[in-house]
């Protein structure tokens, strides 16, 4: 998806996926609500399809049944591999002409990340313009853009099944908890994203702009004992400080025995996903991101087409 050409046709097939992780409740409840009452998702030129991505995990209120849906598939057949194939049939096939045009994948985090828009890279012009629109529509929210793709790597995220997509990551919210404030915010962001797609479909052009984004640069694990258990946890001075600059020498962990562990990186980074519950088993206490500014070229308008009769 690195150098994705901008769409030259209206986006007709759009999906909103909730419950990719079954205990991230905003998306689970929004997907369930829209499956009953999809009115929110209709626009003049298209209707977005709601999908409950991992129904078994959502029913059990777990992140996954056998393995993370957002991870590469192993050769045997855990529940998520079967489900990933089903999603690929429904929303893809990946890298084919029949794939959905766009997926919005809804997530929550236990980290204090506020409103975070997750895209693969800054070369994804359409996604960057969509993120910019969300930032402008909601200036009080401080929406930040996080770019997750490492060079040369394939994306395994659910939204990568479609031609294009982004993730909406809202926090902090504990797993298994549905907070009204975060639920409303997620709902409003999805509405604004669909409004942007509608504007694009109606022939609106968007000028070039500069985007500030946080690009993944590495990860840092917790201090551990020789048995692999935690030996300490995120320091109070780092806890909840997602996106704030972290300088070499600043405390990052507090050991159970009382000492501080200091950050030994070579330069200032922006830490994100600080103390995310689901990342303990992945060996990640926080992700190091670099704050960069990119120029995004203009998004040319489509040749005007008549709105299809619904």
């Amino acid at each position, binding site marked *: 998806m690195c150098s994705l050409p901008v769409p030259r046709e209206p986006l007709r097939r759009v999906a909103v996926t909730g419950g990719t992780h079954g205990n991230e409740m905003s998306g689970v409840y929004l997907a369930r609500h829209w499956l009953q009452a999809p009115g929110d998702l209709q626009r003049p030129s298209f209707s977005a399809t709601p999908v409950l991505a991992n129904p078994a995990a959502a029913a059990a*209120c777990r992140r996954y049944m056998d393995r993370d849906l957002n991870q590469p598939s192993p050769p045997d057949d855990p529940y998520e591999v079967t489900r990933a194939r089903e999603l690929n049939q429904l929303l893809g096939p990946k890298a084919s002409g029949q794939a959905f045009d766009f997926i919005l994948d809804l997530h929550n985090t236990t980290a204090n990340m506020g409103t975070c828009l997750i895209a693969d890279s800054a070369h994804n012009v359409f996604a960057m313009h969509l993120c910019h629109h969300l930032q402008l529509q909601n200036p009080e929210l401080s929406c930040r853009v996080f770019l997750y793709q490492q060079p040369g790597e394939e994306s395994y995220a659910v939204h990568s099944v479609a031609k294009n997509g982004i993730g909406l990551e809202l926090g902090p919210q504990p797993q298994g908890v549905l907070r009204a404030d975060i639920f409303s915010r997620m709902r409003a962001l999805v509405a604004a994203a669909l409004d942007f797609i509608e504007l694009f479909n109606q022939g609106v052009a968007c000028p070039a702009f500069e985007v500030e984004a946080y690009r993944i640069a590495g990860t840092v694990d917790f201090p551990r004992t020789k048995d692999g258990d935690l030996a300490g946890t995120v320091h109070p001075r780092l806890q909840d400080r997602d996106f704030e600059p972290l300088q070499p020498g600043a405390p990052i962990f507090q050991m159970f025995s009382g000492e501080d562990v200091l950050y030994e990186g070579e330069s200032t980074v922006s830490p994100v996903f600080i*103390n*995310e519950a689901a990342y303990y088993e992945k060996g990640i206490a926080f992700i190091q991101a670099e704050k960069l500014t990119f120029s995004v070229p203009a998004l040319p308008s489509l040749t005007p087409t008549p709105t299809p009769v619904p």
Partner: protein
Amino acid sequence: MTSHHVAEEPIKKVAIFGGTHGNELTGVFLVKHWLENGAEIQRTGLEVKPLITNPRAVKKCTRYIDCDLNRVFDLENLGKKISEDLPYEVRRAQEINLLFGPKNSEDSYDVIFDLHNTTSNMGCTLILEDSRNDFLIQMFHYVKTSLAPLPCYVYLIEHPSLKYATTRSIAKYPVGIEVGPQPHGVLRADILNQMRKMIKHALDFIHDFNEGKKFPPCAIEVYKIMEKVDYPRNESGEIAAVIHPSLQDQDWKPLHPGDPVFLTLDGKTILLGGNCTVYPVFVNEAAYYEKKEAFAKTTKLTLNAKSIHSSLH
């Protein structure tokens, strides 16, 4: 002449339980740390034993394997015949009862602290099971005073039908320690430090008591459970409304009839009925969705304790 103070037996055996719910990490890691290096929890004259109560759930970082360990310490479950068909937690409860009980016997541990976290904004909370227990009221008074100005609330779960059979109930003096808000599966340093202080003060109290200190009569404010309130649900039993933003995070604050309580997914507000002010706790606790509890209503009252001292002095 009526006795104005109570002479209690000195405390000999104390246990600290962590991991009763395997994803409530503060207790898990404090106990694991103390199993390696227990200096911090030792006091002269006192045996303090840390224990991970639900090791299989801790390993999977989940609340429980088959059923909630903190609900199966009733005499019926403790007395069931051992078999492979029994839920894991019932078998484990029977093992714990042998090691630290038996419940209701002279041999049981004197004090058990059971460490928990909640996703609710409850701060530092001590849980009391018996409103007439002078020793524990005195201990809680001591801990609250020592922690001030950090607030510490006392939740009284004495109730004919709502009281539940906790892991700690096998002790003569059961103490629940609940600190939040913390997501399950997350370990926060600030919450760890608060729980650590609560335990330190409680152990200091026991040590002072054993050394002969006389504690004068005292009074504490407690919040007594009245009723549990479920989420509004649809015909399929799915949750149809969320805790209202005005109630979210407002544990312990007065809630009046007519105040917003829930917000439906369609945007309608549901108000508190009834005719008395209540104090909500466990507001939006993740683990209670399946127990059909959106929050619990409590009433505020004052408990008094007589003066106490150790009978050896």
